């Protein structure tokens, strides 16, 4: 066992607790946006792949890294965009009083 592992374990346990706490507070109303948002967030694996793609440590590493960057970046962009698109649609009572209002 290494210090790094020790640290990682602590971080993981604490973060999982937080995840449990905050996510149980998300109402069913927003479960679909929740899915797409957490999705975008976990695309942070970007930081791992960026280093590989730029580290000039053999063409294979560069290639794998670049593909990974591509995949993650796709998730980042699409994830945030679609989440925001969904959330924009959620409205309070006011709006639909005048019907025919198209979702902005």
């Amino acid at each position, binding site marked *: 066992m290494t210090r790094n592992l020790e640290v990682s374990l602590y971080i993981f346990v604490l973060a999982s607790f937080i995840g449990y706490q905050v996510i149980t507070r998300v109402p*069913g109303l927003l*479960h679909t946006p*929740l899915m797409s948002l957490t999705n975008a*967030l976990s695309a942070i694996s970007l930081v791992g792949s960026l280093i590989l793609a730029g580290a000039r440590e053999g063409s*294979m590493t560069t290639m794998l890294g670049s593909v990974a960057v*591509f995949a993650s970046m*796709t998730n*980042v962009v699409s994830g945030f965009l679609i989440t925001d698109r969904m959330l924009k649609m959620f409205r309070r009572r006011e709006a639909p009083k005048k019907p025919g209002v198209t*979702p902005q």
Partner: protein
Amino acid sequence: MIAAISGRDAAITLIYLLAAACFILALKWLSHPTTARRGVLAGEIGMGAALVATLFNARIVEFQWIAIALVLGSALGVPLGLLVPMTAVPQRTALSHAFGALAAGLVGTAEFYLNKPDIEKTTMVALGLEVVLGFLTFTGSLMAAGKLQGIVRDRPWVYKGQNLVNLAILGSALVMVGLLVADPSRTVFFPIIILGSLVFGVMLVIRIGGADMPTVISLLNSYAGLSAAMMGFVLNNKLLIIAGALDGSSGLLLSIIMCRAMNRSFANVLFGGFGAEEARAGEVEQRPVRSVGPEETAMILDASRLVIVVPGYGMAAAQAQHKVRELSDLLMRRGIQVKFAIHPVAGRMPGHMNVLLAEANVPYDQLFDLDAVNPEFPLAEVVLVVGANDVVNPAARTDTASPIYGMPILDVDKAQSVIVVKRSMRSGFAGIDNELFYLEKTQMLFGDAKSILGEVVDELSRMPAKEGVSR
């Protein structure tokens, strides 16, 4: 062990910490519609900061590949984010899990070949998990997306001893990880591990019916998160661990919520071949039902004070949400109170109905969940069931033999009268008959939800406005 780090690394570290905080706040703010978009913003800020900071990492020496990958990724991301219709959200989610997991798997692979043969044992464990989870989630999610999109055939592919075969595949992959932990120089195993995981992903999902996909997708979601967290263990990057853990727990919780609401176990979802039944029980023996036309429906609705609308998968399938909105607006302007009853697993993914109705611009304070609305049904003159079936099936309360027994349902049968919009007497996802349709108080409005409700709307709008009506 005072290991000092350079000013630049310190800065990067702090930015990562800030990003982690942003991510947590993002999810926290998602707890209410009014703050949700701020949450997205927080997430974007964190992501942007982390991305930029990483580019300053000393190990990064050449940028052209990074630039290309980022551009291409964005180029694909924008359409995926902006053009995908709301009804295709489940597929899109599955697809992005596939991408995320692929990234994790590839990074793991690269790390292995960079650091072999001297990889510290615990690191190797994490790396192995990262790769296995990554690649099985990759193919699994692709399959799921394919099934939901109708590219792969939806019907579950089941044969005897299937579970054994699958477990064997997964088992051998894990055993080889173990061997690599013992001696990382046995590099030959690595490709086999990858292959095994890829195959297992396919096998896992191929046996599951399309309707069960949402649960599986959430499960795969938590795998993807876990795999990202493992990547964090390998690179000991705390931000990765945190984001991974958040993603993982969200996936897990959502799948648990779905299973609960369906009153089923993970095992049942993964190995039950539930979808198969769906296929079998497709047709049900005919019994007399009262059917009704659009015009009469319009009059019945117009005659009542409180109407509760119960949307289900059928509304999604028919894209009828806009018609439903029009109808409810018409009724409300005619002084009739309209409420929407949303079952947690109505539709095909968590929150499915909420998103569709929001898309159709129905205010969310008009939507009520199970516990809130169930006491109200007895007060409603009419309940309009739009393409919902299982979630309003009384068998869940009464018939211990039924596959959905114990699943909490909307007590539509307690209402004063019920109108059910569906195309036929065919059963829903659970593939079982629904007593509700045969009740005295129930009338069937047969037809495609969108078109038939369109007719109801026309009828209503043709009716003369009532006097002295105000909301």
